[in-house]
């Protein structure tokens, strides 16, 4: 039997503990040690500090319910700008150790440190520990880290002890962890699959991993076969280290308070979302071949419409015209709406000059030029300096009036030369 090393591959998973709430607590001493939630503008708890978790608050709980049961909780509007800045720093710090980093979500990443021991002059566990130390120090809150032989084991590790855990799982120790992990907690296994497994007396991850390959192959689909292989220590799931520039769809949804039944206002909200979605598409040089519009009602039901386009576009005027033509097919005048949504579908590289029968290509090039200028103006003077008249009502008022209209502190506490739309890209300590 040949010797198997502890880490034939060394993969790390890092997870920011209660990321958004921690971003808030780290910059404001008044919030430290207190139950804090973010997501006030959405009316639900989006991120929950450990103190708030201890009170029994869970993700998605409504503010109303939280106020009733735990009146002492501090509720904050999301400050995505700051969270994104800190998220970027998180990834930059991990990249000091290895270029192989997958930005899995705003508060999670995978890193492949295989072969970095000589360069960094540290063993794998020490590298994991050092990354954690750097993150905790630079961001002012804690991260949980898992080190394993592949993504599944690393992810299991980072979840093993939270907050501020560092879990090292060498190849030979994998079974010890799988034994204590319920099957439903395996990364990638949902409750449906878990109950299917239970019917076959598979209750823990170890039961699952020990199941014979023939049984797995005949009873489960490929994604689950791959999970099985990973739990058995094989390296299957590759890291996606390329930054995300390939969007198949781009969606923009915005809620507003109070809800409205005003056709003009609701339409202007939709128009603003269309503009935003197009800005994003143009940034990646993409254009849509289809579009879907949705309106969400007070009771969370929604109406909508999906349209195919005759040619590719990332020009809001095109889509707004379509939305206008079809608006009454999904807008009902007696209904109150609280959110609008647009999804650009079938996105492709925008290499325009695609000639069509009616010579529209020339007009398109002109429009493209116009929007290149619009993007340039907005880049210089701030987002939404120039916007379409159809979005006027949505831009005129704050997105949320009343209690939920609280603006993140960073947008109110500015330095000379900063504007509501454009600020320095450095997070700020606060505490007013």
């Amino acid at each position, binding site marked *: 039997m040949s010797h198997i090393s502890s880490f034939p591959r060394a993969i790390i998973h890092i997870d920011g503990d209660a990321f958004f709430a921690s971003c808030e607590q780290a910059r404001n001493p008044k919030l430290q040690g207190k139950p804090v939630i973010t997501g006030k503008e959405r009316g639900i708890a989006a991120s929950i500090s450990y103190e708030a978790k201890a009170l029994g608050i869970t993700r998605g709980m409504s503010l109303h319910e939280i106020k009733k049961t735990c009146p002492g909780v501090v509720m904050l509007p999301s400050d995505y700008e700051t969270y994104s800045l800190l998220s970027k*720093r998180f990834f*930059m710090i991990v990249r000091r150790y290895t270029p192989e980093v997958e930005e899995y979500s705003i508060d999670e990443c995978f890193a492949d440190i295989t072969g970095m021991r000589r360069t960094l002059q540290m063993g794998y566990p020490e590298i994991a520990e050092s990354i954690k130390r750097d993150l905790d120090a*630079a961001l002012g809150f804690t991260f949980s880290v898992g080190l394993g032989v592949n993504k599944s084991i690393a992810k299991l590790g980072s979840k093993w002890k939270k907050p501020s855990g560092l879990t090292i799982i060498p190849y030979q120790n994998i079974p010890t962890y799988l034994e204590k992990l319920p099957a439903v907690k395996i990364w990638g296994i949902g409750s449906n699959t878990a109950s299917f497994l239970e019917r076959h007396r598979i209750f823990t991850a170890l039961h699952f991993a020990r199941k014979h390959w023939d049984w797995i192959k005949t009873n489960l689909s490929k994604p689950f076969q791959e999970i099985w292989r990973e739990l058995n220590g094989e390296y299957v799931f590759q890291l996606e280290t390329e930054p995300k520039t390939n969007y198949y769809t781009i969606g923009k949804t915005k809620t507003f308070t109070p809800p409205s039944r005003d056709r003009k206002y609701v339409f202007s909200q939709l128009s603003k979302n269309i503009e935003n979605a197009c800005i994003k598409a143009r940034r990646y040089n993409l254009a849509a071949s289809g579009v879907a519009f949705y309106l969400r009602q007070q009771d969370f039901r929604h109406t909508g419409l999906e349209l195919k386009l005759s040619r590719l576009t990332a020009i809001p005027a095109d889509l707004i015209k379509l939305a206008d033509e079809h608006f009454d097919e999904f807008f009902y005048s007696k209904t109150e709406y609280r959110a609008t949504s647009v999804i650009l579908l079938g996105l492709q590289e925008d290499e325009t000059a695609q000639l069509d029968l009616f010579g529209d290509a020339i007009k398109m090039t002109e429009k493209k030029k116009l929007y290149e200028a619009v993007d340039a103006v907005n880049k210089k003077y701030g987002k939404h300096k120039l916007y379409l008249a159809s979005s006027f009502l949505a831009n005129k008022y704050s997105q949320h009036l009343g209690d939920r209209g609280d603006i993140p502190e960073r947008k109110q506490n500015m330095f000379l030369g900063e504007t509501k739309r454009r600020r320095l890209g450095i*997070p700020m300590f606060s505490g007013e």
Partner: protein
Amino acid sequence: MSQDRFQQLISFYRKHKRMPSYGELVKLFGLKSKSPAYKFTAKLLDQGLIGKDASGRLLPTAIFSELPILGTVAAGWPSPAEEEISNTMNLDDYLIRNKEATYLFKVKGDSMSGAGIMDGDMALVERGRQAKDGDIVLAEIDREWTLKYFRKRNGKVYLEAANKKYGLIYPNEELKVAAVLVSVIRKYKF
């Protein structure tokens, strides 16, 4: 072929600042024995491209240290711009040391006016950096951030303002220093 070998010989000389031994020539040219190496050097000796000392060791000639000139082309005085610009840094690099750990803080009050830090100034502070005696730090006192001198005397730490109106601050328990001041920026016009 022998031209290549001559170039290899020159490269060896430039790298090692000496001529090779015959054994090294065998290795250098990938030969199986010394005799082709002797033949090669004999030819070069004939042509006066190398020399030999009394004990038989090879000697370089002038050609080894000079770059052969292939011809001349008229040119203007080289512009120093490209080289010089690589020695400059932008304001970010100048004001910030550890980019991922640096934060903004808006100065409040006049407690540091003696150090030239005024109300409303933009302070750039670095998290997780060890504070040294005399550093200006961002510390937490009574659930508020405060910018003060960090003092360490006889193992005791305390904070000191740069304004006589304010007294020394001794922490009740441990002093919580969040960050160390790196730069202060004040903008007058935009």
